[in-house]
């Protein structure tokens, strides 16, 4: 592994079942992600992208292949080590938010820091900062049920950042959001990108996917195409709107 790689997967496979019922959800994936890079993985539902994301974040183990995160080999790691690594080094964002409904926004955000052994004061300070950064300072004391979908997702993103993770993994982060809330989440991801946060987004929404530096298309468990998006397109923006000259 080179110094410029934060996350590396090599020959990763995930199989379910056997014989005629064998499903190859992920079928031999190689991937390297540089620190500060934003990557999207796009593909139809059932293409294996969520399974792959879970493997990259240590939520699931590959049937075959290796996964390295910042020098740690995840696929061979014990349960306790893996749990610690997930808590300290990975931030997860899910389609269905997965907030604790009985905790307020700020309590949800500070929870990972408390679990990591930070003092309540330090955890609260960090959570306050993060809610401020996600534009939710005035919603800190609200229960998730009193928040809109977009606000809940922003709380979930703040929570994912609580322990300053090496990488944020987002699984269909805007799947449950309307276009206005989607744009808010996009702005937030964009500002994270600007601060150098490494981010991997799995989505079937081309709009979310297009915010990344690099986009991978996945089909039937394999990568079928890769595009670098930062190079710019051939025409001008004006031409796209029908303006000429």
């Amino acid at each position: 592994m080179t110094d410029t790689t934060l996350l590396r997967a090599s020959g990763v496979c995930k199989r379910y079942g056997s014989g005629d019922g064998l499903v190859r959800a992920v079928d031999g994936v190689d991937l390297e992600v540089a620190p500060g890079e934003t990557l999207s993985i796009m593909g139809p539902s059932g293409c294996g992208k969520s399974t792959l994301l879970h493997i990259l974040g240590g939520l699931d183990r590959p049937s075959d292949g290796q996964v390295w995160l910042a020098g740690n080999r995840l696929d061979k790691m014990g349960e306790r080590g893996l749990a610690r690594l997930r808590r300290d080094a990975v931030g997860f964002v899910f389609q269905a938010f997965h907030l604790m409904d009985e905790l307020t926004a700020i309590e949800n955000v500070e929870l990972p820091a408390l679990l990591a052994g930070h003092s309540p004061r330090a955890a609260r300070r960090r959570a306050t900062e993060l809610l401020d950064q996600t534009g939710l300072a005035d919603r800190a004391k609200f229960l998730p049920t009193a928040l809109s979908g977009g606000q809940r997702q922003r709380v979930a993103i703040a929570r994912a950042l609580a322990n300053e993770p090496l990488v944020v993994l987002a699984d269909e982060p805007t799947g449950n959001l309307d276009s206005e809330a989607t744009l808010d989440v996009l702005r937030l991801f964009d500002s994270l990108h600007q601060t150098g946060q490494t981010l991997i987004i799995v989505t079937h929404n081309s709009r979310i996917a297009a915010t990344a530096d690099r986009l991978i298309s996945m089909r039937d468990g394999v990568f079928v195409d890769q595009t670098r998006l930062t190079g710019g397109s051939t025409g001008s923006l004006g031409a796209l709107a029908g303006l000429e000259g």
Partner: protein
Amino acid sequence: MRQEIVLAMLAKEPSHGYELRARLGQALGPLGDDMNAGQIYVTLARLEKAGLVTCERSAGLADRPDRKVYELTAAGQQRVAGWLAEVSWPRPDLAEFHLKLVAAAAGKLADPLAIVDAQRRELLRRLSEAQRAAIAEPAASTAGLLLEGIVLRLQADLRWLEACERNWTGRKESKQ
């Protein structure tokens, strides 16, 4: 740019050329950046010749073009009204791409799926660019709405490419 757009920008009140440019710039945001300023004056001169606008020099000022104030004539107002009532919509050029895939497959000239992939990469780069510009616009920006239109159109085109991909994958598999 269509003459009618320049005319319509004058409908609010008699204006200097630079005021027209500012109005267009505000409505277009980053899309107006490569707008050719000289073209507005050329268009205004044509409109004047056609009797759709009149032009008066502000008194006591030098004969610089920006000192001219343009105003719609009755005919100009009628033209603007007609333009607003006109139901026009740009025609998307889908048939050409569709026929490209058909021809590539029929003549075994190229893999239709490779053509779809190349097209998708280009559209995604455009989407990425439009998306970045949209994020950079403040929430209340008028130009943001235009960028949103570009984004939504590109998303629709990308969905169509998905349908093309399914179709040509299916045909390839059924032949094997």
